[in-house]
């Protein structure tokens, strides 16, 4: 029993850290621009595939970077992709919610086609850090991999940096302001367009990090964007749409809930409890845990 709880805490913490990365970018984009970015999952997938191409010797033989170099390159690349997606497509249609919604769906579906065209649908494996820690001598029945620990640490570093940026710098505070009230932000001289572009850049970077960890704990596949996108939805609704703090809290809530189900109920029930919780929130607390940070004009 104690061992089970140890496993639960450990695995839950590590999975939740990745969930937080997945959800924060999604919630930021919604909070600032009111845009439901369904291509968010595609950006996560881009992170996995770009990292895979960079570190694997077999995909493109003349590029085989050390993971420590490939990691920042991938994060920057996905951030730029995300920024580009905003500049090239979304900014022209963002005033129309339905068109934006459709446009980002199209991007997501097209990304699957592109990946199948380029790499086929064979799962692509990749290594960030190899090895695992055997915790059985400590009474915990788990052998977590170093890459999971790395995911946990990197997630919190990213969240810390983001928090610092948003609350302590003028630049960052303009994002927070825009997410609270666009009109208020504009009245204080905030350039909304540039704030939104920055949000996409940051969301892209976080998606890139999440993609790298998803790819190196599992593998990259053409439909790997679906689950993260569904998770992002659940987490964001529970945390409160637009709230970064809410996303982090909800990511841990969902991560632990899933792990709890797996440990004590059974593997097959993994996702069901989260959906039940989602339904409860939608019915009784639709603004989510920290929904007040997001105020409509």
């Amino acid at each position, binding site marked *: 029993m104690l061992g089970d709880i140890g496993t639960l805490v450990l695995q839950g913490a590590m999975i939740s850290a990745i969930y937080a990365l997945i959800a924060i970018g999604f919630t930021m984009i919604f909070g600032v621009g009111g845009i439901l970015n369904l291509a968010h999952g595609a950006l996560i997938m881009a992170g996995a595939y770009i990292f895979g191409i960079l570190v694997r010797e077999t995909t493109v033989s003349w590029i085989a970077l050390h993971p420590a170099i490939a990691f920042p390159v991938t994060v920057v690349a996905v951030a730029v992709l995300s920024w580009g997606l905003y500049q090239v497509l979304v900014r022209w249609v963002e005033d129309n919610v339905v068109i934006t919604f459709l446009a980002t769906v199209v991007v997501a579906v097209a990304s699957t086609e592109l990946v199948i065209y380029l790499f*086929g649908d064979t799962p692509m494996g990749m290594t960030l850090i190899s090895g695992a820690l055997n915790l059985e001598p400590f009474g915990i*029945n788990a052998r977590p991999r170093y890459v999971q620990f790395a995911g946990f640490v990197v997630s919190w570093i990213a969240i810390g940096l983001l928090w610092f940026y948003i609350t302590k710098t003028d630049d960052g505070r303009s994002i927070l302001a825009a997410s609270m009230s666009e009109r208020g932000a504009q009245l204080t001289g905030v350039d909304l367009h540039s704030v939104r572009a920055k949000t996409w850049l940051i969301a892209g970077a976080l998606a890139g990090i999440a993609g790298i960890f998803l790819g190196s704990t599992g593998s990259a596949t053409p439909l790997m964007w679906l689950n993260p996108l569904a998770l992002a939805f659940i987490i964001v609704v529970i945390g409160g749409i637009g709230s970064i703090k809410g996303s982090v809290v909800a990511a841990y809530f969902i991560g632990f809930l*899933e792990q709890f189900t797996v440990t004590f109920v059974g*593997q097959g029930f993994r996702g069901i409890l989260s959906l039940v919780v989602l339904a409860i929130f939608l019915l009784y607390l639709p603004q989510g845990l920290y929904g007040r940070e997001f105020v409509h004009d």
Partner: protein
Amino acid sequence: MANEDNNNRDPGKDGNGAVGRRTFLGAAGAGAVATTFAGCLGGEDEALTIGHLAPMDNPLGVGSDRTAQMAVDEINENGGFDGEEAELLTRDTRTEPSEAQDVTEELIQQENVDLLVGTFNSETTQSILDLTAEFDVPFMITGSADPGLITDFVGDDYEEFKNVFRIGPINSDFQSESIADYCEYLSELHGWDEVAFLRDNAAWTEPFGEHVPDLLAERDIDIVLEDALSIEIDDLAPVLSDVNESGADYILRFFAHINAGEMLGIWHEAEYEFGIEGIHVAGMLPVYHAATEGAASYETTSQSGAAGVSPITDRTQPFVQDYAERYEGEDEPPTQAPMYMGFNTYDGISIFGEVVDAIGTTNTRDNLDEFVDEMLEIDFTGVAGQISFYGEDSDYPHDVEEERGDDGTITNFPMTQWTPEGDIECVYPEQHQTAEHQMPHWMQ
């Protein structure tokens, strides 16, 4: 409608996922064109046409299409099918019964095919059995192993469904027996006698769920953990922890839907002290070792044809070499060897060639009885093994017969293992063995 395929999340394992928009539009377009011209074209009765059905977004289907073309080309060049040249028409069934029915109907009614060959997942195969029976079109199953496809149709109403034959693989009842024999081999070789029995929670693994526990018990092998895993599972770490806790010597798993890449990655990095054995469809892909960056090392899977690494018959290896020479320049996998369905499809068309030569006509639909009689006479040396079929009065009429060695164990369901170097070795049965089964290096 066009959005349906987005619901699938398991690309590459059974062809269920990643159904492309291109594929959909292509198929829809073909369907539309076919319907438009249905009235005016009629069929050309003269030419011999062979219809091939497979999920073409899946390497299994691609390999099967290529071997079908090889067989047709070879026979055309060597005097033809009873003197006639055949044309191969491949249609993409995806893994959807409704799609399979549409394209089968087109092949039968517009193209007047004289043979249908292929189909991968059991649901798809089952969906077209009625249609082929109604029009008396010989149908050779080359990708599905569900025993029910034979017992519930040919077995149940022989007159109606006598057009249906299975070329391979051997059905899952025999596969269960063969896997149990393999477990006995592992027990003798490594002293492994405690098993964690895991399978996809899907129709195709049900015969295994039904038979394997009893068959293992007969062989004094204990199942210490048993689970049918959700095919949507995306975190296999807790499963591996459970297996580890159970003290199993190896996981015996039956995965076609589940992407076991993550499981293999964790297994290697954590150096869990158990083996991973059984059937893993993704692991049959010739590039799988490279795709997983070596994490596939030491895992095994059984597959008809043993990936062409063992001279199962005299024809196996020349066939695989020929395949590799033809397709090594292609982008789309599999390029080194077809996957199991390709072996069976090749054998199916080759057998068809022999049978029409013997009955002296390629008009099989009007001469079905002669065709069936001749099929039942056949004892054919194929690339996947020696092929003959069960007769009307057996438990599995028109199913491919299992081959048995001198000790009575089944030999035509070979087991292959990935080596750390990325090679495939056939480790079971002894008759076809190219190397002994290896434990993972951290257990040796």
